[in-house]
C-alpha cells in the first residue's frame, strides 16, 4: 500500500543538541499511528516537521507524495498543537470561523463544518461563550475542533488528550476511530500514555530522537513477550542501551 506520509532519514538538531537522528517512518492511508515516548523525546519536533513548520537538517519528508514543506498541502493537514492556541477574547464560534476562513471555506461550508465539528466535540451549547471562560477540557476540545474544521485527510494531533477527564478522553478516542474507519482519515497521535498507544493501529516508540521499535501493538507485545505495554516500552529502551 502506498504511504500517505513518508519520513526518510530525517535528522534535526538545535544548536549542538541532536533532537532527531535518522528517523524513518511510513504511515499508510487510513492508519491511526501512535508516536509514543517520554517528554523531550523529539515527538513534537517530528510532527512539526511533517506539518512543515520545522525543516529537516537531513533527509526528506513526503506527505501525499509531495515533498514538505508545501504550503498547499497544509489544506489537507489538520494540526493540533500541544498548547491550546486559541484567542481568549473571541467566542468559540469566532475562533472556528477565523480558522475556517484561513482555510478558504465559503460561508455555507463554514456553517455546516462549524456545526459539525462543534457537535463532534460536544461544544455546540458553548459556542457563543468567550474562550477565556472555557475550562481546560473545553479548550482542548475546541482545539481539536479547529484541527478538523477544513475536513483534512490527515490529522496530526500532538498530545490531544492531556488534561482531559477519562470520560471525555474515551469519547475523543472513539471519535478518532470513527474518523479513521468511516472517513478514512490518516491520524498521527503523539502521547506518553501507554493505554492510548494500545488503541493505535501502529505504534512507533521514540526516545532520544530515535525510533526504538515499531509495529502493531500486538506485534510489539509478542516481540517483547509481555502483556503490559509499559513493559514493552521499558524493555525496548533497555535493548537499545
Amino acid at each position, binding site marked *: 500500500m502506498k504511504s500517505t506520509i513518508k519520513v526518510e532519514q530525517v535528522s534535526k538538531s538545535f544548536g549542538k543538541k541532536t533532537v532527531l537522528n535518522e528517523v524513518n517512518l511510513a504511515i499508510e492511508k487510513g492508519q491511526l499511528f501512535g508516536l509514543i515516548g517520554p517528554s523531550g523525546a523529539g515527538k513534537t519536533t517530528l510532527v512539526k516537521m511533517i*506539518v*512543515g*513548520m*520545522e*525543516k529537516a537538517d537531513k533527509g526528506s519528508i513526503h506527505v501525499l507524495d509531495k515533498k514538505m*514543506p*508545501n*504550503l*498547499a498541502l*497544509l*489544506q489537507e*493537514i489538520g*494540526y493540533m*498543537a500541544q*498548547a*491550546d*492556541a*486559541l*484567542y*481568549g*477574547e*473571541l467566542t468559540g464560534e*469566532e475562533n472556528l470561523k*477565523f*480558522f475556517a*476562513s*484561513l*482555510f*478558504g471555506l465559503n460561508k455555507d461550508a463554514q456553517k455546516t463544518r462549524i456545526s459539525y465539528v462543534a457537535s463532534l466535540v460536544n461544544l455546540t451549547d458553548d459556542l457563543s461563550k*468567550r474562550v477565556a471562560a472555557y475550562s481546560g477540557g473545553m479548550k482542548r476540545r475546541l482545539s481539536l475542533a*479547529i484541527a478538523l474544521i477544513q475536513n483534512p485527510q490527515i490529522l496530526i494531533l500532538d498530545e490531544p488528550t492531556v488534561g482531559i477527564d477519562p470520560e471525555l478522553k474515551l469519547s475523543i478516542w472513539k471519535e478518532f476511530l470513527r474518523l479513521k474507519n468511516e472517513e478514512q482519515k490518516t491520524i498521527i497521535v503523539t502521547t506518553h500514555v501507554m493505554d492510548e498507544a494500545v488503541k493505535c493501529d501502529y505504534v512507533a516508540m521514540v526516545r532520544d530522537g530515535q525510533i526504538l521499535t515499531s509495529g502493531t501493538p500486538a506485534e510489539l507485545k509478542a516481540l517483547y513477550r509481555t502483556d503490559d505495554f509499559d513493559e514493552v516500552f521499558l524493555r525496548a529502551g533497555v535493548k537499545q542501551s
Partner: protein
Amino acid sequence: MRILALVKRIFRQMFRDKRTLALLFVAPLLILTLMYFLFNGNTVDPKLGVIGVDDSLVKVLKKADIQVEQYKKVSANTVVDDELDGLLEQDNRQIKLTLLNNDPSKAKGLQMKVSQAVAAQTKAMLIKQNPAAAGMAQQNIDIDYVYGDKDTVFFDVLSPILVGFFVFFFVFIISGIGLLRERTTGTLERLMSTPIRRWEIVTAYLVGYGIFAVIQTLIVVFYSITVLDIVLVGSIGHVLLINLLLALVALSLGILLSTFAASEFQMIQFIPIAVIPQIFFAGIFPLEGMANWLQAVAKVMPMYYAGDALKGVMYKGLSFSDISGDLLALIIFTVIFIVLNIFSLKKYRTL
C-alpha cells in the same frame, strides 16, 4: 481573503479589549492636554527686593513687570527668608544684584530685566543732562518674525513633535504587544500550520492595527488643532500624511521588535532603547549643536524625520515638496522593517 479574516479578527479582539482602546485613543489626548497647560501656565512676575535704589529706577523696574519690595535693612538671608528672586542694592553709583538662582531661566530673565532697567535709567539721566542727545537716543527696533509671531511660545514649537511622538509611542506599544501575544499563546504557530503566507500575516497586521493608528492619528491631530489650538500654518492633510507614515514605521518596528521579546515585560524593556531616544532627536534639541557622531545617530531615527516634517508643516507652513525628503525617509524605514518582519517569521515556518 485570509488577510481580511485576520484583519477582522484583530478588530474583534481590539473592540473586546476596552482598556487598550482607551489607552490608544484617550491617553495621548490626556498627555497632550497636560503638556498644553504646563507650558501655557501664566508666568509669575519675579519678586525683587531693593535697598537704597532711587525712585526713578524703581519706577522703571515696576514697569518691567517686576514685583518690587522696598527694604530698609537687609541681612545675608533676606533673599531666602522672604522668598525673593533677587535683591538689588545701590550704594551711590555701585549697583549690586543678588540672584536666588534656584531656577536658572528665571534668574537670567530677572537679570536681563534689571540690566535693561538700569540702562534705560542711565539713558534717561543722560538725556536730562544733555537734552540735545534725546533725538539721537530715541530709537525703536522694528521686529519681524520669519516663523510665528511675538506671541510664539515654546509649546508651539514643541507640540508638532509631541503629536508625532505620541502617535509613534502608542502605536508601537499596541502593535508590538498584539503580535507578541500571538507568539506567546502559540496562536502564531497555529496560524503557521494553515496555508497562510508570511507576507499575508504581516500585511494583515499592518492593515488591522494600521486602521486603529489612522483613527488615533485623526483624533490626536484634530484635538490638538481644534481644542488645544496648536498652531497649524501648513496643510492639515500633510500633517495627517506625516503622522500616518510615522504610525506605519511604529507599527512595523513594534511588530519586528516583538520578535526579540519573550514576554510583555521584555517588550516594555524596548521602550527606553527604541522609543525614548527618538524624542531627543525629534527636534526638541537643536541638531546643529550635537557632536558629529550624535548627528549621525539622529539620521537613523524615524522621529528625526517625522519631527522635522511636522515642525516644518505645522509651525513653518512648509509645502509638500519641502517635506518630501522626510516622507521618503519614513517610507524607507517602513519598507525595511516590513521586509525584516517577513523574514523573521521564518522562525515559525521556513516556507
